[in-house]
């Protein structure tokens, strides 16, 4: 199976080939193969072995294998790891990477004279396909390897990649597809994404290795009632760090990671080498941490999802997850970070941050043990990515609409795309797709007499390439120490957060408290002389909603008579709730009303996840406002929404009338910030808004401004526009998550249990302590603004000046 030279090398190393590596060699001429292997299972080698075997026996001119990974760092890492065996075996193979960091001259040369193996990212690949000479660059391409495909599936980056693959497949009909994935719940879904529809895709499952050793971390103190800091567990975590070689401490958000890291150092009396790593930190700083990690110099790293992907981080023997993992799949992948050696069990400990998370962590543990990963509903390819793909295609040269449509529908997620939808996207790319036909002579794409579509102005190709990609950075500003000529970069914060700072304010970044000094051009300048308690930076880290499957498990647990598997402090709490009110049940909606602190409170246990509960809060308070109940505010968690106001709710049923809620949603969506943010992302991906323009990069603030105006203008004059539809669909699934509210309403079928009580209930009490309370604003905002401006005028003495 293997050429002698490679076999000899394996033997000399004293290595044998894993069964799944063997299986990949056997399937070397299948059109599509998906390998599912645990971290550390020699996955990448399994992907490359057929390429090496091929090139060892048959000389090849030009590009043979294209490797695509979601991370630039991974491409560079693989280049190093592949170089060694190739050199030692003595194979005449050229290996190069091509990412955003590759120099222009090198990129140009790669197009004319590609290496045998090219390592790249989805964006760089899409860019390569946009050049008119793409057919020459990719001539002779045999295989494409998509690494960490589970991280790309179900994302716009993955959609863009698969669309690029459909184009490559047309250029190179013999190209074979290989996907490499970590453990996932539904390998078939990923196989469908990978294959050229309707071709089948064989799935190779590697031995998953021994079951992980995973449990809740034993902490003497009970967790607090609310919050996400888990400061109570610091001593126990430090003890674990001491007992292990290297520990990864995962957090769900960057802000929480910063606070925890800060607290950990305050208690780190032995000065153990502990570092922090997350996506908002400066690249140099991250690379230093990564380097120290590989050399085994660190005992622990406090991190976020930025360490989720498969780079080899040396000898990690413990993973600690702080806070409930929110979905089981992510937990499993994080556990896999420990013991990056094949056939050694990974060890992981969960630390619930508050009392409710004890229940959630328990449910997640049971799900992991049952091998029950949360499935996601199948998705259809987003149209904004298709619009960008059409523009990229046009950059490469004239195209026929029929042929492009046929090509696009070979992508699994676009297989059900209708011709009408495709034509709407093409029309958007050509004319903007507006009801009002204007500036016809300036169309972006024009149809030639022979029916082919092309760019009206070939110079537009440069602008389209400059704005290629689907990753939406929040508008981030660099943070630097203030020095005469630009101090040390520390990382980034969101522009909106920077705008909320006044000189003298303090915040945490990279585990340090810094003092805000001012904004200089696009940089936040800070100093170290901070003596105040820090405000926490609002990083862009996503707030994950608890998955449907995990929520259902929690409701199942609530049905038990006793909870021997839970620590007494949590079990007692649930018993008390059962005695005072009742525990929420699946298929019923528990609605508690009680007075507290002079206000009328209602607690609604929807178990619909944070985003949907937040939307529910907005919609219910809107209905309550209409009914004269004077709601004043609300707060939401993954499992409930707590609303307070002046009047008690006597009958909750009218509040949950589905058509009423849907109507409320329509009205509310109009001016909603979430929608505007979604629109900005969609309009940027679809090519309506250009983040980069020839000359200067448009700053984030101006982009925000104009995209909001475009959104308002479209809603007013062209409410059926394609991009508004895409925005709406996206928000309904994502941040607004109305889908889960609909799901909830279907499940309860009007079964609402209304409990009117004389005091706050045990399950509702923690919500009072939650941060993120949302005030209900009617005409209130204008009033507040007026008060504030009058106040400022008075304080400044300007209002006394004769006007």
């Amino acid at each position, binding site marked *: 199976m293997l050429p002698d030279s490679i076999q000899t090398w394996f033997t000399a190393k004293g290595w044998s080939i894993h069964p799944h590596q063997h299986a990949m060699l056997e399937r070397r001429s299948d059109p599509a193969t998906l390998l599912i292997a645990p971290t550390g299972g020699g996955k990448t080698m399994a992907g490359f072995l057929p390429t090496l075997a091929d090139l060892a026996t048959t000389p090849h001119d030009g590009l043979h294998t294209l490797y695509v990974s979601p991370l630039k760092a991974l491409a560079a890492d693989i280049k190093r790891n592949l170089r060694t065996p190739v050199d030692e075996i003595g194979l005449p193979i050229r290996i190069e990477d091509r990412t955003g960091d590759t120099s222009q001259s090198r990129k140009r040369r790669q197009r004319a004279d590609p290496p045998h193996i090219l390592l790249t990212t989805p964006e760089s690949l899409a860019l390569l396909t946009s050049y008119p000479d793409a057919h020459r660059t990719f001539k002779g391409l045999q295989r494409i390897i998509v690494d960490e495909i589970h991280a790309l599936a179900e994302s716009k980056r993955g959609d863009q990649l698969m669309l690029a693959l459909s184009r490559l497949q047309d250029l190179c009909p013999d190209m074979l597809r290989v996907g490499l994935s970590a453990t996932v719940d539904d390998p078939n879904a990923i196989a469908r994404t990978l294959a050229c529809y309707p071709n089948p895709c064989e799935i190779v499952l590697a031995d998953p290795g021994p079951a992980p050793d995973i449990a809740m971390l034993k902490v003497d103190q009970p967790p607090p009632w609310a919050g996400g800091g888990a400061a109570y567990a610091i001593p126990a975590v430090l003890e674990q760090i001491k007992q292990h070689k290297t520990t990864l401490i995962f957090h769900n958000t960057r802000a929480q990671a910063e606070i925890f890291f800060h607290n950990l150092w305050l208690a780190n009396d032995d000065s153990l080498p502990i570092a922090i790593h997350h996506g908002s930190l400066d690249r140099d700083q991250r690379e230093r941490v990564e380097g120290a990690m590989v050399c085994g110099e660190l005992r622990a790293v406090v991190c976020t999802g930025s360490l989720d992907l498969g780079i080899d981080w040396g000898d990690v023997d413990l993973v600690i997850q702080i806070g409930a993992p929110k979905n089981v799949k992510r937990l499993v992948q994080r556990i896999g970070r420990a013991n990056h050696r094949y056939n050694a069990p990974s060890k992981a400990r969960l630390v619930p941050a508050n009392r409710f998370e004890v229940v959630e962590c328990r449910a997640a543990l049971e799900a992991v043990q049952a091998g029950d990963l949360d499935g996601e509903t199948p998705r259809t390819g987003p149209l904004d990515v298709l619009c960008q793909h059409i523009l990229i295609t046009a950059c490469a040269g004239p195209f026929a609409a029929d042929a492009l449509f046929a090509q696009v529908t070979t992508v699994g997620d676009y297989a059900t795309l209708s011709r009408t939808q495709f034509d709407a996207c093409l029309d958007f790319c050509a004319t903007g797709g*507006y009801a009002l036909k204007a500036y016809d002579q300036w169309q972006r794409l024009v149809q030639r007499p022979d029916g082919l579509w092309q760019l009206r102005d070939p110079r537009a190709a440069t602008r389209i390439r400059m704005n290629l990609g689907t990753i939406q950075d929040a508008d981030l500003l660099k943070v630097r120490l203030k020095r005469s000529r630009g101090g040390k970069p520390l990382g980034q914060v969101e522009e909106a957060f920077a*705008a909320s700072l006044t000189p003298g304010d303090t915040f945490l970044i990279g585990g340090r408290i810094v003092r805000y000094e001012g904004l200089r051009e696009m940089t936040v300048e800070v100093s170290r002389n901070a003596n105040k308690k820090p405000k926490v930076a609002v990083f862009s880290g996503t707030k994950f909603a608890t998955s449907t499957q995990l929520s259902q498990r929690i409701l199942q647990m609530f049905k038990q008579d006793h909870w021997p598997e839970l620590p007494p402090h949590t079990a007692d709490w649930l018993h008390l709730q059962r005695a005072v009110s009742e525990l929420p049940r699946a298929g019923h909606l528990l609605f508690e009303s009680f007075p507290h602190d002079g206000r009328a409170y209602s607690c609604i246990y929807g178990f619909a996840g944070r985003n949907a509960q937040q939307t529910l809060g907005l919609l219910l308070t809107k209905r309550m406002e209409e009914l004269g109940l004077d709601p004043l505010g609300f707060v939401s968690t993954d499992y409930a929404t707590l609303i307070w106001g002046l009047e008690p709710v006597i009958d909750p049923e009218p509040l949950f009338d589905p058509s009423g809620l849907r109507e409320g949603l329509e009205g509310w969506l109009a001016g909603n910030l979430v929608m505007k943010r979604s629109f900005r992302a969609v309009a940027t991906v679809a090519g309506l808004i250009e983040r980069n323009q020839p000359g200067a990069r448009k700053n984030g603030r101006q982009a925000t401004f104009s995209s909001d105006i475009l959104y308002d203008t479209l809603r*007013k004059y062209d409410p059926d526009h394609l991009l508004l539809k895409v925005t709406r669909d996206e928000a309904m699934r994502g941040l607004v998550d109305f889908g889960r509210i609909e799901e909830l309403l279907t499940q309860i079928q009007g079964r609402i249990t209304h409990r009117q009580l004389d005091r706050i209930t045990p399950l509702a009490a923690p919500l009072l302590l939650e941060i993120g309370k949302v005030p209900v604003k009617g005409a209130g905002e204008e009033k507040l603004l007026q008060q504030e401006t009058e106040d400022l005028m008075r304080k400044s003495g300007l209002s006394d000046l004769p006007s």
Partner: protein
Amino acid sequence: MTGFDFSFAGTTLTALGAGALWWPNMRMLVVSDLHLGKSERHARRGGGPLPPYETADTLQRLSQLIAQSDPACVICLGDTFDDLAAAQALSTQERALLHDLIGARRWIWIEGNHDPAPTDFGGEHHSALNIGPLTFRHIADPETQGEVSGHYHPKARVRSTSRPAFLVDPARVILPAFGTYTGGLRSTDPALTTLMSPNALAILTGPRPLPVPMPR
């Protein structure tokens, strides 16, 4: 029309919440930076096809203001059109709407940096104009007193709300941009902090105009 009255160069002016300046004594309405035809210019230059509704939207808002105030004279402080070709490219309906607005009243075009030459919509054309104690021009001249200008598209932030704003000090008034597709320059930008005196006001536009000490 909600407005904030202030004394300026010996006369009284009203900053309207809609983003226009009203001079009651002269029954004069002043607007700046309409940038009509912006989406057309954007598309012409190879940019994305922006929703082509901003000209109609801007003219409709102007038409409402004119209906409410019935001015004897209207001054457009420059950058009325995104460029001269954009002015040529207005649709028939948009032209008709603009002609209706101009009607029989005195209409003054001040030249801007985007539209330096006269357009064919009638009215008077000036690079700058003195009326009574006031001087109207597009870009503020630091040496002039009693000046009303535009160009900078100023905006100001109070609490977490940022809105287009008038900037007022004893020597000058700078108008916010009136056009629908216009971005803004923060009052904290050096271009504005050096131009405006320390006791300058910013008047935020909106449902009711809100005066604040100009944020610096």
